[in-house]
């Protein structure tokens, strides 16, 4: 599990040029096109009038120094010439030269050696409560069946997917737009620590980098490249998740989406994917059938409401049917008393979750 000098130089070059890429993108250069260029051409394309200075810096890059920086940041590095590099990712010409891994490198090794199944679960940063629960449930089911859940650790759906996989002990892999030793977004520091402790986080950027705009679509290409199936849980039109889906499609990977209400703008993008022929994903079983083959793995049995007492079962049915607040479930204070006690019982037994604004969500 190592990185060769050439690939380390390439990574250092990307670090040098990171600030120049967004300008080139304004000139309508496609990010994948740029990242597929060899070192010299990349320098020529991006450096502009600072070319001489950057050329000199490039020549001075010392792989040995890069290795000691990696060791200091406690990162593992795998380059595309290493046997431990995930083969699925190698299929694209613009694959990252080096993957930096924070956490458990065995997770990446498993993707390489046995070609362990991996599914990307991505979606909107600003997502509805129900969509967050769906992502969480999907990831829980996939991870419990041994499928690596890949996502981008962003707010919203991405984090919910990681959290769902963590609930059953993984496996799950976070792909970052910053360096692998930088928790981005900062508010997800808790999730980052949990991932690094038990799972893994990877990035192609050199250690310590903070993300530029172009790093996000570049990160998406890595997510799409690592997974055999990409599922979009909720995406508005022009969402970053749609870029991931498009990249997956270009690589010839399967793309799925969770259907949402047709009138809601926040599900317009994912619904459009379905219209264009993406797979309909309702729950973890659908995703497992797609990723592993029909009937190969059975998702965790969903919690069985059958063993609940009748009034609780009726209450759960009403919550699942959209009665998400106590006001919607009760007309009088006496009924509210019943509803509150019932909801707390359902919550304790894991059938519902109380979300922001006092709303209750039935768990998938």
């Amino acid at each position, binding site marked *: 599990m190592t990185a060769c000098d050439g690939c380390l130089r390439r990574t250092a070059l990307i670090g040098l040029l990171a600030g120049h890429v967004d300008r080139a993108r304004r000139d309508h250069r496609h990010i994948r096109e740029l990242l597929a260029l060899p070192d010299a051409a990349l320098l020529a394309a991006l450096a502009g009038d600072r070319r001489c200075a950057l050329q000199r810096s490039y020549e001075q890059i010392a792989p040995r120094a890069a290795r000691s920086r990696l060791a200091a940041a406690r990162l593992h590095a795998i380059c595309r010439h290493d046997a431990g590099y995930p083969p699925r990712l190698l299929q694209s010409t613009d694959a990252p030269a080096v993957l930096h891994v924070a956490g458990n490198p065995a997770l990446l090794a498993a993707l390489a050696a046995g070609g362990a199944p991996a599914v990307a679960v991505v979606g909107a940063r600003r997502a509805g*409560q129900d969509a967050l629960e769906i992502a*969480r449930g999907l990831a829980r089911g996939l991870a419990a069946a041994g499928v690596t859940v890949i996502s981008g650790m962003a707010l919203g759906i991405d984090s919910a997917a990681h959290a769902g996989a*963590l609930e059953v002990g993984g496996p799950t892999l976070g792909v970052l737009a910053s360096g692998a030793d930088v928790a981005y977004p900062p508010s997800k520091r808790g999730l980052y620590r949990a991932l690094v402790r038990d799972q893994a986080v990877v990035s192609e950027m050199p250690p310590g980098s903070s993300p530029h705009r172009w790093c996000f679509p570049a990160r998406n290409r890595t997510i799409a490249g690592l997974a055999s199936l990409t599922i979009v849980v909720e995406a508005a039109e022009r969402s970053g998740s749609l870029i991931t889906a498009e990249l997956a499609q270009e690589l010839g990977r399967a793309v799925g989406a969770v259907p949402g209400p047709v009138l809601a703008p926040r599900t317009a993008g994912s619904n459009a994917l379905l219209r264009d022929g993406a797979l309909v994903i309702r729950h973890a079983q659908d995703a497992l059938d797609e990723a592993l083959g029909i009937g190969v793995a059975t998702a965790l049995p969903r919690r069985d409401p059958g063993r609940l007492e009748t009034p609780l079962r009726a209450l759960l049915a009403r919550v699942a049917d959209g009665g998400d607040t106590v006001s919607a479930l009760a007309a009088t*204070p006496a009924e509210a008393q019943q509803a509150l006690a019932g909801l707390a019982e359902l919550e304790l037994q894991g059938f519902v979750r109380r979300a922001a*604004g*006092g709303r209750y969500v039935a768990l998938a």
Partner: protein
Amino acid sequence: MLSVHIVRPSLRPMLARVTTFAIDGLASRRITVEVDLRRGLPAFTIVGRADAAVRESRERVHAALLNSEFAFPQRRITVNLAPAHLRKVGPGFDLATACGVLAASEQVPAAELGRWAVFGELSLSGELRHCRGVLAVAEGARRAGIAGLIVPRECAREAALVDGLAVAGVESLGEVAAILRGGRPPELPAGPLALERPGEALDLADVRGHPAAIRALTIAAAGGHNLLLSGPPGTGKTMLARRLAPVLPPLSRDEAVAVTRIHSVAGLHAGGGLVSQRPLRAPHHTISAPGLVGGGTLPSPGEASLAHHGVLFLDELSEFSRSALEALRQPLEDGVVAIVRGQRTIVFPTRFQLVASTNPCPCGLVGSDRCRCSQADVARHRRKLSGPLLDRMDLLVHMPRPTAAQLAARAGTSSADVRAEVRDARARQATRLAGAAVATNAELTARVLREHADADARAHAALQRAYARGELTARGHGRVLRVARTIADLAGSPRVRATHVNEALGFRQEDAIEGTLAA
């Protein structure tokens, strides 16, 4: 027109003493007004740490005497307000000064003045005007062992709340002179002892579509719990909060006297008699810290004290300044606020029930599709609310926008029903808490709470499960148990059962542990 009553005062020096009182915090201090008349160029001087309003009293006294057909002695007049180290403010010394001048110039007999204390502001016509703090003055007079108190007629019924003190309510300086000449004091004005306030008219039946909030209000009223209402603007949070005070049990006489004293000192109590309704104070969010808890060079009670034995409602809690909310800590913890001025400390009682309302996020629509706040906005908004204040909020209830059908529904629970429920629950609490030195479940400390909650095994299990699942913090654990105790009292159950705990869990705050990893 004016037939001046000519007196020919003797030319020897004369001295008169009159007893009056100065407001000091919520109490009063005895002040002796000494008036000295002697030969010399006509002058009128007031000494004894008097502020501008007291020095202006010279002009009022001068005019009032002449307009009441008394003579104003053309002598050298010195008025001393003793003890001299106390600062004297306000117009309450007018009447005492006028009486002193009358006695020193032998227009009224000085002997009778020893039996009375006088307190009141004069108008130029010689009429007496309403003064703040009369109840505190009457209590001071009673404590000083003075037989009678002469006050403006408007304030007479307030002064008469103090037993064992003869109160004369008079309308003019002329009537005061008549009493001092041995006349019979006028009868107290008639009227009910207790004042009715329009608060009675606020009924819970007007609130539509908030069954959980009405239930929370009932629990809050029964156990004295502080209540946090969360919801988008315009859903009826304020409407609900204003209906808490009317369902609380009526004030006891001692409580009513305490409330009247504070409101009287603050100048909010006109018309005399006793305040019988629990006060509701709803200060605007621009209020300063001294405005909220009391302050000023001569400290006067703040909103927290004005809400003593009543309800303090803070609408849009997150809009209040940090310093104002911080200042509420001591009143919430101790039930009093101590203000230090110079070498003295003035203590105002602040035993109020706190109701606060807040938007769940800056736009108020968090959790719905229309919310346009970023995660950072919501986090910043929550941070503003965090801290010691939230620790004191036992109940959190969400008030989503009611649907059209709910708004059109027939009237719901009435205040009378809730009042009856609250009364029964309070009675059960009182029996149970008889030896505990507190009156309500909300005041139970952690240790006493465990003893009193008497939770059965399943209730304990429910609490443990919630704690283990990270749905409760350690502090939240105590809050839920306290609320469960009140729910059990409402249900008439001696023990706290699982269903009570479950309902209380529905009113818990969203603690930090929840959802830290996801979204």
